[in-house]
């Protein structure tokens, strides 16, 4: 196996109101760790927050984390769009729970959350992000 092997799993959720949206999905069981998270540049407002990002009861990010910290435009190179400044989370096919709120929602939009999974979390972090 290539030491930098990884996969990007994408979660899609239509945001239909300014209320909290909760979505859950099982992560790819062929990969052992969640290493990064990215959110595509969408219509979500600067006030949008990730109320919770949790795997197996472990918080990946602090509660009510501002989306502004991790959203990236298409001007950023694809591999650099991932936010990886947290401890890689052991997954092995576990379910991820995400709660999201956009207080300034004004029309429906599709929120895409990209999750970077790998079996060699430190190698991926070093090779993609820390150079």
């Amino acid at each position: 196996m290539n030491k930098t092997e990884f996969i990007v799993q994408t979660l899609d959720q239509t945001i239909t109101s300014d209320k909290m949206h909760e979505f859950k999905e099982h992560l790819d069981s062929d990969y052992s760790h969640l290493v990064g998270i990215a959110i595509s540049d969408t219509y979500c407002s600067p006030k949008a927050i990730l109320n919770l990002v949790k795997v197996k009861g472990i918080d990946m990010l602090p509660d009510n984390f501002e989306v502004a910290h991790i959203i990236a435009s298409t001007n950023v190179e694809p591999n650099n769009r991932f936010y990886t400044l947290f401890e890689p989370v052991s997954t092995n096919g576990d379910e991820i729970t995400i709660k999201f709120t956009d207080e300034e929602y004004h029309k429906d939009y599709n929120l895409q959350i990209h999750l970077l999974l790998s079996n060699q979390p430190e190698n991926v972090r070093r090779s993609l992000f820390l150079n």
Partner: protein
Amino acid sequence: MAKISIQKIDLDAEKTHQAFEYNSNEFKKLIAVFCSPAVQLSLVFDNGRKVFVRGMEYQESKDSIPNHRVFSINKTLNKEIISGVINKTKRHIGQLAVYLIVEK
């Protein structure tokens, strides 16, 4: 292996100026700091003795690399109080928080 975590210091978003303190006892290293967009950050180490930054404006752009939107510090912590002041700029909206990326 060292474990890193993000410690969030929630502040009152209604206030324009606000001081904060964080007891870093359980951590050995401060890797980086970031905060809510559109604020000015002052940061003091060594229990109030060393001013590290004063009034640095912090803003975020979707066109920058998310991992680079932090102030890298890499400072060894000696069971000290980290303190600081946040000043909101006119462009600030939403919640107000300071985040410390720390290592155990």
